[in-house]
């Protein structure tokens, strides 16, 4: 009883206080600001923290059923869980040639998937891999460090940067629309995939990401993908990101290059006399 009474006082106090806090700025996109989200001294939402997507989009960003894995020795451990996709409307509007190429990618995924070789994951794939990532947000710029392969990128907010060359992680330029951090990613080299089933884009892709707090421990992540070389229209993915709440959570180094050398160079190892 007593604690419930105290709760109601706190609720009342909060009801009085919340409108006073500087977070009642409605965003350009129109979404209401989530109450109680951490903020930097300049009033911007502070995304600093460790985040991770749940779900199985890392395997296939479209709806998919569970299936056996490629190595029977791994049994249930190596099986592929099913799950709901993260593509709005579930359809990826490939041009006919690109739909064919996606099928070829799938058929040859054990040799072609850049993740198998521990290559940099690209954007947006890095976001929903089965690894956490950490956002470090300064007053001016934002850094994202992904546990997978220590992939990282700077989101330039203070001063935009032109991509000088195409790269795996591209060049990210950010701006604020109300409480949403909008990030335009260009200069991608088109060699990374979206998932393990071979969904792909080209080096002409332009990705616009949107990071918005749903509540203090959840982000709504959206990415719009435009690539006239590969798709017939822009399309969008949406996936929630969960804050890692373990006490003293931190990224654990995952330097996977050394886990792939036998796969990549094994046939070039000196054969000892038999």
């Amino acid at each position, binding site marked *: 009883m007593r604690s419930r009474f105290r709760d109601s006082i706190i609720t009342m106090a909060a009801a009085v206080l919340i409108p006073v806090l500087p977070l009642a700025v409605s965003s350009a996109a129109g979404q209401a600001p989530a109450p109680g989200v951490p903020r*930097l001294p300049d009033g911007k939402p502070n995304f600093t923290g460790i985040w991770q997507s749940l779900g199985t989009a890392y395997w296939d960003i479209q709806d998919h059923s569970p299936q056996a894995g490629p190595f029977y020795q791994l049994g249930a451990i190596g099986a592929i869980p099913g799950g709901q996709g993260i593509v709005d409307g579930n359809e990826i509007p490939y041009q006919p040639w690109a739909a064919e190429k996606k099928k070829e990618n799938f058929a040859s995924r054990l040799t072609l998937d*850049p993740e198998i070789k521990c290559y940099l994951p690209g954007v947006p794939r890095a976001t929903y891999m089965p690894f956490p990532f950490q956002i*470090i947000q300064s007053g001016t710029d934002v850094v994202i460090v992904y546990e997978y392969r220590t992939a990282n990128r700077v989101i330039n907010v203070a001063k935009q940067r032109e991509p000088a060359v195409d790269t795996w992680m591209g060049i990210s330029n950010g701006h604020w629309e109300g409480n949403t951090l909008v990030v335009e990613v260009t200069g991608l080299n088109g060699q990374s995939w979206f998932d393990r089933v071979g969904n792909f884009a080209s080096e002409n892709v332009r990705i616009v990401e949107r990071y918005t707090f749903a509540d203090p421990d959840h982000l709504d992540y959206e990415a719009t993908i435009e690539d006239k070389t590969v798709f017939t229209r822009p399309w969008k993915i949406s996936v929630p990101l969960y804050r890692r709440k373990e006490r003293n959570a*931190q990224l654990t180094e995952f330097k996977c290059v050394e886990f792939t050398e036998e796969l990549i*160079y094994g046939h070039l190892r000196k054969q000892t006399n038999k």
Partner: protein
Amino acid sequence: MSHRLLACILVLVALAAVSAAQVRPSAPAAPAAKTWTPPKTAWGDPDLQGTYTSDDFMDTPIERPVALGERLYLTQDELAREAAQLAKEAEADLREAVAPDARVSTGPPGHWGERARRPPRQTSLIVDPPNGRMPPLTNEGQKRLNATEARQTALTPQRPPASWEDYDLYIRCITRGAAGSILPSSYDNGTQIVQAPGYVTLLHEKVHEARIIPLDKRPHVGQNVRSYLGDSRGHFEGNTLVVETTNFLDNKTGIGRNGNGIPGSDALRLVERFTRIDPNTIQYEMTIDDPKIYTKPWKISFPITQESGYELFEYTCHEGNFAMFNSLSGARAEEKAAAERAKQK
């Protein structure tokens, strides 16, 4: 690495600057008291943010030549010679950039790499012990030194690589380790520092590394969580960021350029100090405490500087490691050819 065009411009500027015969040495290791007050972040931490490079110290030896004894700084004459040498290199770089056919060497052109922008004042990166040399090694340290030297001489045409494991972790595009990622090397010496409330992040261009340093005084992770870059914890002492790093993997990278040198032990405790001494300079200091390898702690110190137009580029090492493929397949092809020659005899 800075932009190629920019590099050419820098060379021009460097030429002009150096030929003005005014030797402007790099920042001293022990800065004199200054009136300059470092800025603070909006949340009150000393602001170290920016993109810094250790290019100026790329030619400074880690260990001081014995003949120089306890002398840490170059004389004015030595500085002038260094400046003249830099000017000569800059001129050669420029000539190659303008007329690539004039090049006679077989290596990559000089302007592909980077150069010191001003002569470094120090005679060595090691500042303690006072003789600028590593302290005596333990038996284990000596054993590892011998093994490292044996491996370095192993890759001759007579002894081609049996596998990728004959190469070091840097050549394999795995890592240069925490110390090796900031010690100056011949190119791509950039480190970008980004701060947030509760964190400092170091992004190292070469090998695409990131170190995230929590400032909240949390304990280190458990002893069984080991990594190449270790487990870092930071705090501010006045305007100095102090970073203590433990939990290193055993026998991987060393305290040397690109992580070479004697591979450190799992007992290594690295203490780094970052002090911003002027708007463009951080005095960087590293104390190496590895009782299994060295008989006492020792210290490296040098400045890192922000340079106009210098920015980081994506260092996609593993994805483009054709040299590894070529070197191994070349070795196997030569073995096959030799076997066939032997058969014909």
